[in-house]
């Protein structure tokens, strides 16, 4: 259950929600150290640590050179020794430099040591396309972490979720991959005044509906909502579900929605092949096969690296129109 001692409600941005979570948790837990490129005086490439250096100083905000492998290993090693650490890869793409540390060291340590060593580290990175950032700066491979036993994976879509989930991530006992979306940082949304946390493993139903379930992750939640608005005009009532955390996955809520609507479409900025979209199809089959009135549909990015040309990139990434068109097809079943 989401815990809150909230009173009023404010509109803040996705990026500021993260900063609030960091500030509150770093005040609360003196052991937290934050490691990454440009996260000190500069306040983060995406402004994702603005103001924190002033408050917490050089010791707890550790600017690094361009050494994601080393920085990630150091964060894990610090976590193993009793210091809760955040390592910011900035662009999730740069986590590719550090996969061996994340997958071999952080993910395995609890199991292989039979729980004697824990690595409470948050690996933070921003995924997805924004403004023709190109092939090297737009990857969405969050599913790789989800497929790695020993890692939890969080993919918030709203400021509210960023704050509540980041606070929970910072209280976990093991490694959490916390993946924001670059294009969402400036988006705004309501959050309560007081403190609150959101447990990992609880999906959020953004919009109730009757005829089809749309499962969207991260930025694709807004695409799903747009598509739902289009479909509504055509008399199709879509329920939009955001798992919010990929691991643990709230299979119950997703399956409950599909059981109710009988149809599901998954919208994902990653390509379809071997990704999260197939996992939801499998979930649908495993949990509610007899309720399915149509084959689950996957609306994903086309299987190419992100093109620079805006025209091509628009074509590559799922749009509300593409989602609506695919949903219309399964509504015919």
């Amino acid at each position, binding site marked *: 259950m989401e815990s809150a001692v909230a009173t009023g409600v404010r509109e803040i941005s996705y990026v500021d929600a993260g900063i609030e979570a960091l500030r509150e948790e770093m005040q609360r837990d003196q052991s937290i150290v934050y490691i990454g*490129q*440009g996260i000190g*005086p*500069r306040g983060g*490439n995406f402004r994702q640590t603005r103001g924190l250096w002033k408050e917490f100083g050089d010791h707890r905000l550790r*600017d*690094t*050179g*361009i*050494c994601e*492998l*080393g920085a990630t290993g150091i964060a894990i090693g610090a976590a193993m020794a009793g210091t809760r650490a955040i390592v910011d890869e900035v662009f999730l*793409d*740069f986590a590719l*430099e550090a996969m061996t540390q994340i997958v071999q060291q952080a993910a395995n340590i609890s199991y292989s040591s039979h729980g004697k060593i824990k690595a409470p580290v948050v690996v933070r990175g921003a995924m997805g396309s924004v*403004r*023709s*950032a*190109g*092939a*090297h*700066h737009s990857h969405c491979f969050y599913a790789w972490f989800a497929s790695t036993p020993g890692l939890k994976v969080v993919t918030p879509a709203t400021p509210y979720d960023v704050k509540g989930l980041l606070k929970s991530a910072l209280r976990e006992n093991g490694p959490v991959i916390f993946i924001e979306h670059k294009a969402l940082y400036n988006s705004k949304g309501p959050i309560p005044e007081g403190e609150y946390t959101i447990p990992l493993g609880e999906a959020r139903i953004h919009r109730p509906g009757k005829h089809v379930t749309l499962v969207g992750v991260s930025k694709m939640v807004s695409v799903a909502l747009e598509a739902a608005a289009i479909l509504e005009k055509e008399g199709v009532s879509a329920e939009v579900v955001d798992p919010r955390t990929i691991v643990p996955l709230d299979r119950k809520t997703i399956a409950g929605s599909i059981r109710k609507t009988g149809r599901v479409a998954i919208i994902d900025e990653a390509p379809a092949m071997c990704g999260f979209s197939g996992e939801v199809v499998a979930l649908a089959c495993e949990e509610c096969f007899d309720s399915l009135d149509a084959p689950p549909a996957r609306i994903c990015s*086309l*299987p*190419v*690296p992100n*093109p*620079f*040309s*805006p*025209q*091509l990139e*628009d*074509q*590559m990434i799922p749009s509300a129109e593409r989602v609506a068109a695919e949903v219309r097809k399964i509504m015919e079943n």
Partner: protein
Amino acid sequence: MDVKLLLELYGKMLELREFELKVQDLYRRGMLPGFVHLYVGEEAVGTGVCANLRPDDLIYSTHRGHGHALAKGVPGRDVFAELWGKTTGSSAGRGGSMHLYAPEYGFMGTNGIVGAGIPLATGSALSAQLRKSGQVAVAFFGDGAVNSGSFHEGLNFGAVWNLPVVYVCENNLYATEMAFRRATKNTSVASRAAAYKMPGVEIDGNDVMAVYGAAKEAIARARSDGGPTLIEAKTYRFVGHHEGDPGTDYRTREEVEEWKSRCPIRRLGQKLVGEAGVAQADLDKIHRDVQAWLDDAVQFARQSPEPKPSEVLDHAF
């Protein structure tokens, strides 16, 4: 003093400079997609190195790579059209500033990933060694790349396999806002060559003839089976890290001004007029020619067509 060579280098550096200022102008006016990192102030490095290369030599560049492309001989039209995402661009609009490829000119790409070009250039040098092609490969990279595993593993391979490769570090003192002295305790890049038993040389990267000379020696050594060299060219970007960064939050105005006073183009211009007796009118002519070249490139890029959405899947494999 080889005045002809100096004039050529002057003209090339000017091309690089004017090109970037034009990109800056259009980018600020919201006409170019994506992100751009400009080479303003560092022109002597790419120019001085590439002037020593054969057309079939291969260079690997960085996120700050427009200048390298032009210095290696890629036409301004091709580069500008790519920055504009047009089909006539070097990568047919698929790549943009950080994925600009022109193998037909020995330009093996800018790169969005810091350090990645170092192993790649080393591999191309291995290919040259195996094919006995006589080619040399050059990896350009910034001070930011020096503390990365790619640098370490790449240079070690270059040395132990005695490959025809030259490693050119453009040490402009900062990686984004991070001062090199905050990223490492050893602020001499050249000194690190010793770790790989490779010659290392530090040069004034704002003196095109110093760059030219060091590169000439290193490239000749590489070409004659003498193995790799690490060159550290000390330089400075006059602009922010990328367009949008004022570049003065982490650098003092004095520091920026002091470096601007060492502008490689102005320095060479003064030398040409003051010491080599070149007429100012000759330099003015170069400026006019560069302007005409640039106008043509921009117009070409502007008028070129955009990729068709239906072609989105082309060349994925």
